[in-house]
């Protein structure tokens, strides 16, 4: 793809911010020392790493020693859940939701299937929201951990983590949140929250891929996932990814500075894009609650057509987005998030997620608003399903005859 891509897939990954790249580059070359070394050449890197940790703590409102650097969001999620289970071997129950990222969902299914844990998967309503009553009823003395994402990667729907954490804490149960999509987009102050563990990922907030972090509340019983050297106070062994840690620190400082922009300028652009498309394209709908949502995400379904075909036509115009359709994922079923919300199949296959960033411009949004409707029109001309018609094939027959 050309350099002039119109990038609306920031929930998948983000560009490394120029100031982040500047900060990290020296650590690839002249400043390659190992922070564990006794010489000042290595020790000086350790000092910069401490600053990075402080910057990230500043973004999250926690103490620097409550942060463990990891390799990615998935590692943070796995570490958190496995730590909670290992630290409380007598407890055999996990509570999570049906709309989690695979980093949590697949792990829970694995623990359920091969290690005999009991898992409660909380459902969501048609706008993607949880029922806190259902959560409360699912908790028991046997519950080792509640793991609920802060914001959904596909729809951007935000769960009320402060309220959820308070409820979970009041029952003496460990609370973990996958905040990969929330950090940098929402104001988070862990000091004021009852969250015990929080996962984040660098490449979702303009740091490079291959770096993540796990917040672990002080004094929380914790069992490391990687065992080896003394790095991260023995909580995550392995030589530190110094370059990326420095980058994550710089990205955290930038995220904190830009947080107001996310909720003003980015939100306004997202709203313009969303309202523009919904107004012009008939039989389109928003997936997810209109208000309780990340400021950068818009998940729109276009009825009668399929997402992969839409994406490829967008790609022809240099627009990068993503879809919850079956064909894009390599699986044959549409997104588990949209299915959990009960989005009808007629809409689920034609879902497109636009996710913006602080680098998105108004010109880009206008370009997308102008170019998407003709694409939808083109594909609808090819489709056997038409506006106003019910499905021409018997809807009671098995889901697929092909």
């Amino acid at each position: 793809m050309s350099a002039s891509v119109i990038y609306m897939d920031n929930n998948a990954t983000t560009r490394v911010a120029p100031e982040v790249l500047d900060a990290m580059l020296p650590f690839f070359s002249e400043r390659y020392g190992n922070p564990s070394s006794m010489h000042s050449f290595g020790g000086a890197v350790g000092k910069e790493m401490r600053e990075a940790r402080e910057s990230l703590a500043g973004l999250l409102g926690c103490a620097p020693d409550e942060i463990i650097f990891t390799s990615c969001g998935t590692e943070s999620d796995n570490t958190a859940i496995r730590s909670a289970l290992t630290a409380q071997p007598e407890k055999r129950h996990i509570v999570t939701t049906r709309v989690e990222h695979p980093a949590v969902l697949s792990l829970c299914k694995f623990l359920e299937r091969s290690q005999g844990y009991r898992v409660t998967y909380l459902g969501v309503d048609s706008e993607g929201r949880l029922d806190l009553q259902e959560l409360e009823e699912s908790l028991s003395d046997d519950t080792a951990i509640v793991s609920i994402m802060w914001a959904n990667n596909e729809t951007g729907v935000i769960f009320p983590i402060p309220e959820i954490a308070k409820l979970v804490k009041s029952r003496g149960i460990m609370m973990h949140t996958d905040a990969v999509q929330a950090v940098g987009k929402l104001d988070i102050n862990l000091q004021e929250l009852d969250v015990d563990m929080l996962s984040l990922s660098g490449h979702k907030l303009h740091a490079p891929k291959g770096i993540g972090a796990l917040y672990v509340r002080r004094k929380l019983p914790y069992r490391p996932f990687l065992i080896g050297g003394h790095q991260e106070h023995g909580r995550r062994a392995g030589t530190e990814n110094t370059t990326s840690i420095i980058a994550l620190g710089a990205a955290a400082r930038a995220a904190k500075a830009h947080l107001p922009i996310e909720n003003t300028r980015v939100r306004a652009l997202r709203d313009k894009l969303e309202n523009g498309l919904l107004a012009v394209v008939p039989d389109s709908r928003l997936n997810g609650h209109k208000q309780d949502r990340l400021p950068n995400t818009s998940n729109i379904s276009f009825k009668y057509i399929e997402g992969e075909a839409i994406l490829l036509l967008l790609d022809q115009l240099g627009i990068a987005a993503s879809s919850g359709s079956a064909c894009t994922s390599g699986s044959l079923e549409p997104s588990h998030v949209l299915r959990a919300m009960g989005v009808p199949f007629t809409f689920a296959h034609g879902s497109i997620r636009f996710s913006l960033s602080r680098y998105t411009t108004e010109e880009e949004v206008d370009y997308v608003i102008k170019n998407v409707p003709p694409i939808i029109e083109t594909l609808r001309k090819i489709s056997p399903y038409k506006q106003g018609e019910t499905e021409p094939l018997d809807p009671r027959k098995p889901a697929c005859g092909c």
Partner: protein
Amino acid sequence: MWEYSEIVKEHFLHPKNVGEMKDATCVGEVGSIACGDALKLFLKIEDGTIKDASFQTFGCASAIASSSALTELVKGKTVDEALKISNKDIAAALGGLPKEKMHCSVMGQEALEAAIKSWRGEKVDSVEHSEGEIVCECFGVTDHQILEAVRENDLKTVEDVTYYTKAGGGCAKCHEKIAELIAQARGEAAPAPEPAPKKLTNIQRMRMIEDVLEKEIRPQLQLDGGDIELADIEGLVVSVTLRGHCVGCPASQATVHGTVERTLREKVDPEIQVREV
């Protein structure tokens, strides 16, 4: 991102013969919106020769490209020649398809077969592939289809079968059965053991049915946002009502006759019949 051939891209970006044909001699329809792709093929047949063909497709790029290529392939062919077109021929005309997308070529071949069958006046059931028993409930794929795909394309693994027919691409419950069918088609027969029948009193049977519905079937359906209620039991006939997402779900018939009936037959009595009321 899929690695599509240049021919696939060309057929997708500039599809040939798109649209409804008002004076079509026959139409073949396969697929549904629920499964993610559907094809409606229109043919104009004169004196046993396909004079014209057009299509409407709901689906991904390779589904649209397969349909477009198919219409080009059949034009000018006699009906007998057209019937010889296999899914492999369609894939070949596209310069190949990613193996995960081979089901698009299978869909094309099936639409062609359905259209010609209807032209010949043969009965085309509203439920496609009514021949045989449904193996994959998620996508409504029968044992006949799976056997045919295995034989036609020399498939060896369950994954291959999923790529070609979609069977097994959902809940994965049918993987064992698919493996048996592969063995069968490849002449490596693996007979299934017969369960020994149990003799139950009416009361015992009713209690067991309630128990199995409550503890095994309901939780399973609820995972998918659906639900089921027991309406009545008369001898071996169990009447149920589907609730939640099951209502209007295209797979609900497969749910009633597949999941519900099969589980009850397995756990309670092999002669149980389930009806939806």
